[in-house]
């Protein structure tokens, strides 16, 4: 496969002075988080992120308000156990579809990660998206990076308190909007908001709104990169999918080293320097606080802010762009990298197969379901006619929008009959249990266990046919 990717350790280190234990030579096992002051940067990749961020946030905050014919577009109705998605209604029986969707999401993530590294983290992950929103707010209220550092060092003053409280209020407001929106997918949002403010809502609604508000505020305001470094499982296993052909954000040491400052317009070759002017911009803009020039690190979320920052500097220096760029390990070593490789095909194939399977399942989904439960109490009975009967409960779920009348029939044994009602009407989204008795002449029965099939045919919609297998138990000859 590949040679080992050299890894250097660049944890945000804690300040040694605050962590000394005077009595022994040992120190705290637990280091405080060192606050990272992220410098704002503009550039190509930041613009891409702004587009994805706006699109995702727009969907998240707007979809909850959209109603079609008075029905919310997306409504996960937990008490009624109905899931309304884009006009279709799903039931707990359809959970296999959810599993399929999650498998698609997982393989989509694997597929994109082998090709382009952690782009999910950098551009679309909610943790990143909300963190960037919060950082934007922070920048507007407290000012740029240097101002923020100064403000934090400054003694308490009216101005500092004003700025800090303004920032946290703004954060909490955004977090509250997030929490309300989230719960709004489970509880129609217009009712939710009126109920919440008139104190009519269920205690759980308050709890969950509060929970998501606090979680958003803490994650995007206080935890930030700690989530990616210490909590996120995807962060850990995405690194496993890298190979020398994966495009990741990399510094080109061949071009950049040896680094050093110089005057503008001086040919670096004369000074024996590479293109890196050691300005530290790439470190200051990094949301996880690493130095990309140390090579690939597990903290890197592939957000490409350092690329934007470095390109800006290169432009000023009149050097070509791309000292830090999306590139592969192979390309850095001067080899060519392949986009198409076994991993790409493997993940891509599973992804396509799952998509096809889900599409097929949804396309052929019959809006009704039949389950047959044999009675557990008795094996079989002789009835008055001397025939052998079994009792079943048919569970008929009608997931269509109209009531359905079904004709019930049973087959699989000679002369098998239904003794109870052979038609049943099931209301829309009703789940009907129908006790059904089936009998067979004893001479027909040769096995103690016989396969039979119940068939339900809708009288109004001939395409709606349900078939479910069951067993008919008779005496053992």
């Amino acid at each position, binding site marked *: 496969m590949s040679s080992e990717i050299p890894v250097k*350790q660049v944890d945000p280190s*804690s300040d040694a002075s605050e962590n000394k234990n005077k009595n022994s*030579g040992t120190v*705290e096992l637990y280091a405080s988080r060192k606050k990272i002051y992220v410098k704002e940067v503009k550039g190509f990749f930041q613009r891409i992120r702004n587009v994805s961020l706006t699109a995702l946030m727009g969907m998240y905050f707007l979809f909850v308000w959209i109603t079609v014919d008075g029905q919310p577009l997306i409504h996960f109705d937990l008490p009624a156990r109905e899931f309304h998605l884009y006009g279709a209604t799903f039931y707990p029986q359809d959970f296999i579809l959810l599993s399929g969707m999650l498998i698609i999401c997982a393989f989509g993530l694997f597929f994109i990660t082998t090709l382009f590294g952690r782009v999910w983290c950098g551009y679309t992950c909610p943790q990143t998206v909300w963190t960037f929103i919060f950082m934007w707010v922070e920048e507007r209220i407290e000012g740029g990076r240097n101002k923020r550092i100064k403000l934090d060092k400054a003694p308490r003053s009216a101005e500092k308190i004003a700025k800090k409280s303004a920032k946290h209020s703004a954060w909490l407001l955004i977090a509250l909007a997030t929490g309300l929106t989230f719960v709004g997918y489970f509880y129609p949002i217009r009712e939710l908001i009126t109920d919440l403010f008139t104190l009519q809502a269920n205690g759980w609604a308050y709890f969950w709104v509060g929970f998501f508000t606090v979680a958003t505020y803490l994650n995007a305001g206080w935890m930030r990169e700690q989530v990616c470094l210490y909590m996120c499982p995807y962060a850990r296993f995405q690194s496993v999918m890298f190979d020398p052909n994966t495009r990741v954000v990399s510094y080109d040491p061949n071009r950049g080293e040896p680094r050093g400052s110089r005057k503008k317009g001086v040919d670096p070759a004369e000074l024996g320097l590479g293109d890196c002017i050691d300005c530290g911009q790439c470190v200051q803009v990094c949301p996880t606080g690493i130095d990309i020039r140390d090579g690939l690190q597990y903290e890197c979320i592939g957000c490409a802010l350092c690329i934007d920052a470095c390109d800006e500097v290169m432009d000023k220096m009149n050097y070509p762009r791309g000292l830090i760029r999306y590139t592969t390990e192979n390309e850095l070593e001067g080899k060519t990298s392949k986009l198409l490789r076994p991993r790409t095909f493997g993940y891509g194939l599973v992804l396509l197969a799952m998509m096809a399977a889900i599409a097929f399942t949804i396309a052929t989904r019959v809006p009704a379901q039949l389950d047959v439960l044999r009675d557990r*109490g008795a094996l079989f*009975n002789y009835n*008055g*006619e001397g025939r052998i009967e079994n009792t079943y409960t048919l569970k008929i779920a009608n997931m269509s929008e109209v009531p359905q009348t079904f004709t019930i029939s049973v087959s699989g044994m000679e002369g098998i009959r239904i003794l*109870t009602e052979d038609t049943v009407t099931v209301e829309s989204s009703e789940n009907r249990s129908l*006790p059904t008795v089936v009998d067979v002449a004893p001479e027909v029965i040769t096995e103690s266990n016989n396969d039979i099939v119940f068939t339900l045919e809708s009288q109004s919609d001939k395409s709606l046919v349900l078939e479910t297998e069951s067993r008919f138990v008779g005496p053992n000859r």
Partner: protein
Amino acid sequence: MSTFWSIWISVIVLGTVFGCWWLLLATRKSQTTDTETDKTVGHSFDGIEEYDNPLPKWWFYLFIATCIFSLGYLALYPGLGNFQGLLGWSSTGQWETEMQEADERYGELYAKFGDTPVPELAENDDAMKMGQRLFANNCATCHGSAGRGSLGFPNLTDDDWLYGGDPDSILTTLHEGRNGNMPAMGTMPNMTNAQVDQVVNYVLSFSGREKDAEAAKKGEEVYAQACVACHGPDGKGNQALGAPNLTDNSWLYGSTYDWIRETVVNGRQNQMPAQGDRLSDDQIQILAAYVYSLSN
């Protein structure tokens, strides 16, 4: 539980919580350096080594928080032997509360039908859907989902009733239960084997299924002595006693010669449990109507 076990449990539980706390504090100062190093902790699994680096501080606080949470939990909820917790919560109590809430919620629905006469209720679709669900939850275990019974459990869908199929009899059966008792050999405990065979043949002759016409004739005398008190001279049974009709084709304990012989020799004991203390009057009213509707 006894005081000893109560203390035993409390000591183990609290010991574990405080033990975790102690472990956390004891290992707190185990680091030799607080900056990043290339030093590893010295073990290697499949070439994977671990750096000897500090852990995040919030982790430590999270551990402490879980310890505090457990202490809070143990103070509020039962967990320390016999101590019931300050909230007084118990699973039984929770179940009772939920049952009460359910009664309040569904009681109204049942109450709508509680005063309606059974035959009228049997015509009501909503009540019958409810009845079906009640039946499935409370009766189907013995009588089957469709109420057709099985060996030893009466079929409720035919017109053959042990204790009567009129609304009042059904209500009485449901409220108070029934005890069925067929003594072995009926009222003739000294019955011989030959006489048993005779009486079985006689009983089968009611439905024209006797094996041995001679024996059946002799059986009439045995029947008059042993069975007539309950089942009547014509074998039509007696609903006041719950004695089954022997002339029709519905048999509670099987219709074959061997089954009937078994019944005569060993007798039958059976019980329909009383539901009056399990279900509300309104529920029983709905159930009675549902059972009534099965055969009407």
